[in-house]
């Protein structure tokens, strides 16, 4: 037995070269440590998909047959759940780089591509399986439906229907009087429920805008301090007037640097209880006998000071008024952050990158690919378009081919 284990270990060591490794898929956001007290931080370069300098034409890939084959072999299993076929290998040998785009385009009509998209978003949203009668498969089913039917990718958060277990269009299960794709599934809402609705807001920004708090205020302007409950107005220890918040938890004493933005997004979730159900009677008022950040009856506390504002599920998304989560999702989907974030997500997924590794992806690459995907469409791009434009980008190809050379 020991002998076998030793051989296994030896085999593993050679196979993996680095021995046992870990894959941290969800490290803590990195951008919350050094925030100025004045919320004018612009920590990242704004992404602008409408950059007029971005070329619209699909770039030509000049690759020899071996490199083209190597490239597609390195991504095929994650994108289409299979190795290359004999006919694809033949095509690559004949056409070299010219074969890359048509092969990837053909992949997007395969069932394996739908499965890949579903899996990618299940990982991003942390939603699969079931628990306590909550259907955690619902987000994945909607993703699969949208991809299989070539629906715009923005519908992942704006769709006015969900997909039930039989595959039919159905109402989303949160009971809200509006629908916002995966955002109005109990899986998303219950899976990310937390005090002050911080988990829901964080997941929304992380997955669909690729932003952590604090983000650039040119994207999400800060709420006026006076609109927030006192504990979130503080920019330093001296400004903190609330006893429970004087312990400098979370981001230290600089509450406002994050919560001045958090508050805007968390408010969209104030009517959803911790099981993901929409509740018309939600007040957003702190439970006087409960944990800080929790309202009564499984609901969460609002960031807002005004009593009517606490209970109102409308707020501002990226500076624009939105009456509810549906309108907020529409603004997010139309924002300069949405498509570049989708590009980043597919790169992270395909190459097995962590969030922190994804954070290092060149913003210009993301915006260039997003612009090409967007400008080639008369409607919002599909995930298929985003993926085709991503994996036919010369700079993406270059990374893979260069790594091959470096590893030999």
């Amino acid at each position, binding site marked *: 037995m020991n002998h076998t284990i030793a051989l296994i270990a030896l085999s593993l060591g050679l196979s993996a*070269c680095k021995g046992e490794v870990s*894959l941290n898929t969800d490290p803590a956001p990195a951008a919350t440590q050094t925030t100025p007290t004045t919320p004018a931080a612009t920590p990242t370069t704004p992404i602008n998909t409408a950059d007029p300098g971005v070329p619209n034409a699909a770039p030509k890939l000049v690759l020899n047959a071996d490199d083209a084959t190597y490239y597609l072999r390195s991504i095929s299993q994650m994108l289409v759940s299979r190795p290359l076929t004999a006919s694809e290998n033949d095509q690559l040998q004949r056409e070299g780089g010219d074969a890359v785009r048509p092969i990837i385009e053909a992949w997007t009509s395969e069932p394996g591509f739908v*499965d890949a998209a579903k899996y990618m978003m299940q990982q991003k949203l942390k939603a699969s399986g079931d628990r306590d009668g909550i259907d955690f498969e619902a987000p994945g089913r909607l993703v699969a439906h949208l991809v299989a039917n070539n629906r715009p990718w923005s519908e992942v958060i704006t769709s006015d229907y969900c997909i039930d277990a039989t595959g039919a269009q159905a109402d989303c299960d949160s009971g809200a009087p509006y629908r916002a794709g995966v955002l109005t599934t109990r899986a998303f809402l219950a899976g990310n429920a937390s005090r002050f609705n911080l988990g829901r807001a964080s997941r929304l920004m992380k997955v669909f805008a690729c932003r952590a708090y604090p983000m650039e205020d040119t994207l999400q302007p800060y709420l006026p301090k006076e609109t927030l409950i006192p504990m979130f107005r503080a920019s330093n220890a001296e400004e903190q007037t609330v006893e429970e918040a004087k312990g400098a938890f979370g981001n230290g004493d600089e509450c406002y640097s994050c919560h001045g933005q958090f508050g805007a997004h968390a408010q969209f979730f104030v009517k959803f209880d911790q099981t993901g159900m929409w509740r018309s009677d939600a007040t957003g008022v702190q439970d006087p006998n409960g944990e800080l950040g929790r309202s009564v009856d499984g609901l969460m506390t609002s960031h807002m000071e005004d009593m009517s504002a606490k209970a109102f599920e409308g707020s501002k998304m990226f500076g624009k008024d939105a009456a509810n989560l549906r309108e907020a999702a529409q603004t997010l989907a139309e924002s300069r952050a949405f498509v570049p974030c989708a590009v980043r997500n597919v790169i992270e997924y395909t190459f*097995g990158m962590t969030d922190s590794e994804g954070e290092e992806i060149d913003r210009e690459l993301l915006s260039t690919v997003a612009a090409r995907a967007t400008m080639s469409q008369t409607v919002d791009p599909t995930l298929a378009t985003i993926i085709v434009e991503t994996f036919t980008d010369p700079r993406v190809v270059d990374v893979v081919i260069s790594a091959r050379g470096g590893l030999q």
Partner: protein
Amino acid sequence: MRFWILCLALGAVGCGDGQLAMLQDDATSNFSESLPSAQNPPADEEPLPPAFTLPREYAQLLPFHVRMKKLASVTGADTQDPMFDLVIRNRYGLGDHNFGQGVGADLTWSAAKMSVWVRAMQPVCASEAMRNRYPSLPEHLNELAVAAYGREVNQEDLELVDDAIADVTDPEQRYEAICLAMLSSMEFVGR
């Protein structure tokens, strides 16, 4: 014993290539010579830095559903076929996910996972479906390589297999050793 030596060898084929461990030719890329890129921009432009860095430190498994699809493709059987019962029964130990139950996808390739995976491959390798598609090994190794790896078998593969089974005379043992090694190699289960 034979299996582990062979698996070691096949696993080593992918060594160093990380997630790109697919091809084994030694041809140096001419990509940078032919395409304006971060490495070789036009003369009048500043070179762009690499757009991102691949996580070369990691040897990762393919997602569980991808491995299942590949097994189904190699054998020609449905993923619900009883030959996969052990795989399904151990799915979470092999890296599948169920976030509702608090189980995230774990794509690390560990000794424990490899051991479970190999045991789960034994019914697959003993199945009628495999025998129908690949009646004998290594005689049908090329067909198996095409189905499992998406490429034809090469001389290096053949030499590794020949060396590993040189003194194994029993055809059944040879078949099982080669089959287990192929279906447990990093080139099959990983990226």
